[in-house]
């Protein structure tokens, strides 16, 4: 059995001095926060040595050893924004870490280590010895087995996660002893560990607490009593992402493995989290983390309120809801709000998706021609769009994983990204689209005006960018009209193949194989061929149709299948690179600008926050840094 502690995503890890060290048992005594020391002195909490596992996770602070205390103030916009606060402290078994300006990696978090077999079918995890839930109860494989036997699955409160499936079969989870368990797949699952770093699968649930709400452990009467104690209709409402008992964001009593636990849960104008006294990490000097005592999230309705709070200095550290268009406003108020705008690099690319299988067959045929797509691409002046819409801060590019992603293809992101009106006209003329109507727009082969309807979802996009594209395309004789719809309606239309050209960012690029639908045309809101995508997904949609013979999409599908079942992650990455190369020949979409800066408002009193990292949902946004080593300067 080949054992790899950490599957490297990139072979070069720069010596940045910011990487997290994985040391053995530190040879020093542990320190703790004053607020906990008080409780220890009062006898309501055990000593810090008893609270920490035998080998705590050692986190190297970015700049310096911090001081304890303080409240980290940020804001959220309601129940649907629950991911924002949670991403600061997800109780993960493995976590992403940034290892250099353009490299990241994955590390064990509450596991002390894990091993992968050579065929990527077996993954063995070791729980840190002495690891405890936030109520002090030890974490064992019983909690893992409880999660997979009683929490998720067909007859359980929550469905079986797709992460724990490969092909048609489900993974088998078995515990060797109290601290060791193994996940076994029938087929190779080379991306399992990486996906574990981002999917919402926590791998363990506190059995000692949650079993009292489970029908396998208690009587119907007790369940009913529990439901009414939590003020919900039935015991089922206690479970799941927003379950009143299970969710660590709603229930102050549920034991968790996150650095902070909720103290004042929603619904409340101010949601407050407080440090977990049993958190399993220390800094390089043996101080138990986190440094910060509390995190408060203030509820806001209108984003302008948040902008005012920024200017007032009421936000300590936050990226969520900070729009890049407000950059000048944020910059100009830096001194009044005593903060600094810290820029991370986003990995999304604003993209138009010409639907090659749109019900308008004339347009579908045009979109299928590489020359037509090239004309659409080179007719756009991406620099101007970047300058006007993104204040010159983003990168004009073709859509593909931007630099900083695990799998990157330079050719793809540069393809057809230049501005060349003559070339566009030449290509369109070459396609025989020479006749014009009274307004100077080209005519399609069937004699109608060549008009592209762009559908975009409200709030999701910048109308300004689309209006500029409208202008660029009319310069080469293509008429466009905008169809601005609400988000759910957009999805409805996409799922019914009613869109001629969609507008939606290409996202989750940090490790595109995890969510490769954009490249396989199977992610419907990123689909450049909805009917072909549905054919591949085989969900019984009536409009699904097989792509023409010898179309490159067949190669993409088969390569993707091979990548997802490759023996190792390295092989998968190599196959992924092949997929990007296939698209680089003649991109199926119109990427506009991407890698826009993601703005963090960081107050001057917040310490240990680095600049210039990548921000992506895959790598858990801010969660790529250990938030527990942030501190409030005195």
């Amino acid at each position, binding site marked *: 059995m080949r054992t790899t502690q950490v599957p490297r995503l990139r072979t070069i890890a720069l010596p940045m001095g910011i990487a997290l060290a994985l040391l053995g048992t530190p040879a020093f005594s542990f320190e703790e926060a004053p607020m906990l020391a008080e409780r220890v002195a009062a006898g309501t909490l055990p000593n810090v040595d008893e609270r920490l596992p035998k080998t705590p996770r050692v986190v190297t602070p970015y700049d310096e050893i911090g001081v304890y205390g303080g409240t980290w103030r940020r804001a959220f916009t309601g129940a649907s924004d629950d991911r924002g606060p949670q991403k600061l402290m997800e109780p993960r078994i493995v976590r992403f870490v940034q290892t250099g300006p353009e490299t990241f990696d994955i590390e064990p978090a509450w596991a002390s280590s894990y091993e992968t077999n050579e065929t990527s079918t077996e993954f063995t995890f070791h729980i840190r010895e002495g690891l405890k839930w936030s109520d002090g109860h030890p974490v064992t494989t019983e909690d893992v087995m409880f999660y997979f036997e009683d929490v998720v699955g067909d007859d359980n409160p929550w469905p079986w996660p797709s992460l724990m499936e490969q092909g048609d079969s489900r993974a088998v989870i078995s515990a060797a002893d109290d601290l060791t368990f193994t996940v076994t797949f029938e087929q190779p699952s080379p991306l399992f560990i990486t996906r574990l770093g981002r*999917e919402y699968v926590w791998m363990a649930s506190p059995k000692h607490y949650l079993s009292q709400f489970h029908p396998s452990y208690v009587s119907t009467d007790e369940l009913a009593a529990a439901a009414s104690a939590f003020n919900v209709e039935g015991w089922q409402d206690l479970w799941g992402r927003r379950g009143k008992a299970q969710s660590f964001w709603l229930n102050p009593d549920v034991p968790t493995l996150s650095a902070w636990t909720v103290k004042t849960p929603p619904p409340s104008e101010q949601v407050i989290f407080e440090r977990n006294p049993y958190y399993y990490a220390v800094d390089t000097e043996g101080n138990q983390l986190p440094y910060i005592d509390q995190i408060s999230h203030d509820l806001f309705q209108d984003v302008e309120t948040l902008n005012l709070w920024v200017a007032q200095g009421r936000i300590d550290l936050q990226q969520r809801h900070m729009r890049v268009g407000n950059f000048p406003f944020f910059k100009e108020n830096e001194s009044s709000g005593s903060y600094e705008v810290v820029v991370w690099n986003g990995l999304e690319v604003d993209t138009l998706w010409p639907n090659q299988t749109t019900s308008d067959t004339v347009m579908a045929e045009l979109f299928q021609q590489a020359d037509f797509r090239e004309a659409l691409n080179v007719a756009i002046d991406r620099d101007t769009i970047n300058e006007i819409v993104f204040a010159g801060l983003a990168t004009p590019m073709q859509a593909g994983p931007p630099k900083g992603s695990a799998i990157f293809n330079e050719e793809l992101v540069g393809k057809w990204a230049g501005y060349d009106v003559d070339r566009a006209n030449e290509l369109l003329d070459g396609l025989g689209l020479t006749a014009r109507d009274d307004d100077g727009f080209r005519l399609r082969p069937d004699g109608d005006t060549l008009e592209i309807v762009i559908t975009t979802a409200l709030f999701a996009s910048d109308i300004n960018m689309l209006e500029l594209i409208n202008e660029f395309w009319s310069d080469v004789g293509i008429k466009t009209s905008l169809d601005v719809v609400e988000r759910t309606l957009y999805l409805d239309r996409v799922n019914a193949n009613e869109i001629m050209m969609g507008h939606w960012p290409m996202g989750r690029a940090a490790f595109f194989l995890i969510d490769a639908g954009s490249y396989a045309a199977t992610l419907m809101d990123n689909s450049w061929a909805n009917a072909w995508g549905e054919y591949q997904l085989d969900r019984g949609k009536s409009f699904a149709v097989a792509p023409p013979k010898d179309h490159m999409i067949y190669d993409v599908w088969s390569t993707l299948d091979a990548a997802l079942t490759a023996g190792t992650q390295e092989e998968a990455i190599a196959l992924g690179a092949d997929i990007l190369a296939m698209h680089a020949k003649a991109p199926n979409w119109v990427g506009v600008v991407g890698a826009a800066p993601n703005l963090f408002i960081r107050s001057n009193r917040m310490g240990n926050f680095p600049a210039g990292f990548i921000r992506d949902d895959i790598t858990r946004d801010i969660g790529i840094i250990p938030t527990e080593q942030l501190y409030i300067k005195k």
Partner: protein
Amino acid sequence: MTGYIVRRILWFIPTLLAVSLVSFAIIQLPPGDYLTVLESQMGAEGDYNPEVVARLRERFGFDQPFMVQYGKWMWAMLAHGDLGYSFEWRVPVSSLIGEYLALTVIVTAATLIATWLIALPIGIYSAVRPYSIFDYIATILGFIGKATPNFLLALVLMWWAFDTFGADVSGLFSPEYANAPWSWAKVRDLIAHMWLPLIVLGTSGAASLIRQMRANVLDELQKPYVEAARAQGLPEWKVILRYPVRVALNPFLSTIGSSIPELFSGAVTTAIVLNLPMAGPMLLRALVSQDMYLAGSFIFLLSVFTLIGTLISDILLTLVDPRIRFEES
């Protein structure tokens, strides 16, 4: 008179039922339901699992017909005062909206009183000196307040207060009091935060009150008894305050009822911009996420308040002004 009041109260019941039906119908109008919203949200997060949605759909009873859902909602409300369940926040609606409604009523009542305090003297003075400079200025200022969209005025004032005085003007409470139990300090904090919403909401309502008061007093001033009072040598301000103003106030009572829905509506946009923990923003959020029982309960309860307001003002009017009694009988 008692007969009139009893009839008036009896009418209240069918109107309530109709209001509840309309409230429920409104929230059912938009296409889709809470789960379609949830689906798109999960899709945006890359965490879409159709089985989760299928299970919730069954659990929440969304596949039942409209009247069945309405009947259940009404029955629960009548039988146990249960307003349903908020899907978004996962708590019973009744436990969620209490404080929001209370603050809405407080702010609305404060606005009403503030508007009266400003509008009545101005209206009276304008009537005593019609077409004077003061009358014109008061009228124009009043109408400018009415003509400025609340959301715009709120944002501009909010920025101005911050930019000029560095004042913290968003919300109804400072962060340290947001979760605190009620105390005198919290009440003081509330009052300190209330002036901005009062200005924004008050300016939009003052104009019509000024105009109305002015017209009413003008009417009365023409009447012979005023001349008689003057002839008796009473000082002018006594003449005006003793009779014409008192009589002119009567029609005002009838405006309580009608100004409540206006205030609630005006407060929606203002509360959103100023981040006030009131019913409006919560309702908007509920409507957008199709959290139907929450939205429906808000609409229903706000309507009930309005109906009660109208009822009270009608009854007051009957007590104060005997003519109405005769008219109705």
